């Protein structure tokens, strides 16, 4: 694990010595704060469901900014030649980088906890529903970051990586809408299973379903495995 830890520390140092981490965290907290205030004061809601829904979409737009540089900059800066010739297995590189990106996600989540203060001060929200929403948000974030890392691994260009990630994540988010146009129950079921947003909706309604947990973890595992596999294959 030493190698993974060293890569992780390098990633964190790189994030926080550039404006990216600050930018992403600040934009997310401003955005989610706005939606929270809107839902509470204008929507009259004393729950987080509406805010979580908005946070999910906000996350989809910011994940490509976090993930695009993960491997693509290593190729363009020539540092991939160092990273891939050090005593590091591909999975150690992928895991170290992924955990670095997950740290940004955890900072975002920690920042949104401030929203809970007025919620508990002035209302009686359901703690278990909020907890389920955060679990869903974390799992959604893991899957999105893993997909972003995969596209950053297979291209040398950060912008291309970001665009591919955004396109695929938005596709997974909105694929659920296609259910309306399908007559076949099997296809409807498949589309429903592949939808990031439908699983997420379960969580923000307080339902932590095994199906949803497994779905996000499987997407994460597949994307990370493909990233490590690509690094091995490209030799």
């Amino acid at each position, binding site marked *: 694990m030493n190698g993974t830890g060293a890569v992780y520390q390098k990633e964190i140092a790189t994030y926080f*010595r550039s404006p990216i981490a600050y930018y992403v965290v600040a934009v997310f907290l401003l955005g989610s704060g706005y939606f929270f205030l809107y839902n509470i004061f204008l929507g009259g809601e004393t729950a987080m469901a509406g805010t979580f829904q908005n946070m999910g979409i906000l996350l989809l737009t910011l994940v490509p900014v976090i993930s695009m540089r993960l491997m693509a900059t290593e190729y363009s800066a020539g540092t991939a030649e160092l990273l891939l010739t050090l005593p590091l297995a591909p999975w150690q590189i992928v895991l170290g980088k992924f955990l670095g990106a997950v740290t940004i996600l955890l900072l975002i989540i920690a920042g949104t906890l401030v929203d809970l203060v007025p919620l508990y001060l002035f209302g009686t929200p359901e703690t278990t529903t909020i907890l389920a929403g955060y679990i869903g948000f974390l799992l959604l974030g893991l899957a999105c970051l893993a997909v972003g890392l995969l596209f950053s691994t297979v291209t040398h260009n950060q912008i291309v990586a970001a665009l591919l990630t955004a396109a695929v994540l938005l596709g997974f988010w909105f694929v659920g809408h296609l259910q309306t146009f399908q007559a076949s129950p099997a296809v409807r079921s498949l589309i429903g299973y592949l939808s990031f947003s439908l699983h997420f909706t379960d969580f923000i309604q307080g339902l932590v379903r095994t199906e949803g947990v497994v779905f996000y973890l499987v997407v994460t595992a597949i994307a990370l495995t493909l990233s490590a596999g690509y690094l091995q294959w490209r030799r």
Partner: protein
Amino acid sequence: MSASPVIALESVSKRYGARTVVHDLSFTVAQGEIVGFLGPNGAGKTTTMRMIAGFIAATSGRVTVAGRDMATENVDAARLIGYLPERPPLYDALDVSAYLRFVAKVKGVRRAAITGEIERVATACRLEAVLDDEIFKLSKGYRQRLGLAQALLGAPEVLLLDEPTAGLDPGQIQETREVIRAFGADHAVLLSTHILAEATLICRRVAIINHGRLLAIDSPTGLQNAVEQTNRVVLRVTAEASALREALMSVDGVRAVDIRTDAADAGVLSVECQVGAHDRVEAAIARAVAGRWDLHQLERRQPTLENIFLRYVQERPERGEVA
């Protein structure tokens, strides 16, 4: 050559689609040996270095480093290799000590020894003054030396250096050569360079590669002897050209004679005799000339490594290994 090979390439080829960039390459580097890798741009040097370092895999053939097969044991072998790629692989956002700390950790340097290890390579590469500087602020020379420093971290058994002195000033080049020479005394070093004098100065053997093929590998002296045609004896004589040619051609060992009038000195002829690399004919030539004409100069000119290199890469692209 003393010890067993630390780096060994056996019939190694690398293809990208239909294009073969390295053809059937075989050579070894032993412990305590610095081997220079010479070739024009696009000859396949960097591809070969990358295969040895484990960055890319050979399409066919076998690369081993300290007995480990780089196709299957590259991660294990990487602990034994210090590699400086052609473009120093630096993280601009980090400062120098954070960068070296990262490389040291990945190379498995014990936590307690990391600071000492960084000091050791920083001293060897003269980086003490910039340890706290961010890498993006460093000059080209410092970037190159930092690339070398990371390669030296963790006491590797093998050093692979792709153009290690590129971008350095003459003083830095001298210091870097000393570092490499000291390391090469008891380790294996493969050094890619365009500077032929560098190869002559610090390498025990020199490998010449072009179009992905190994044209020759031998000591600089061995290469000079192998290229017989380029040994010349040069004279300046006041004489009549045809009689002089006849006299010189009668000397045993002289293969060809080229006579030109000296533009700067009327009546004096500039003569170039082609002789075998092992023929010591200067005295016989002097005897044949001195009795009859005024001999102003007689000098044997051995081929420079530059001549040898150019001859190999321009005239003998299909030649095989000579040693």
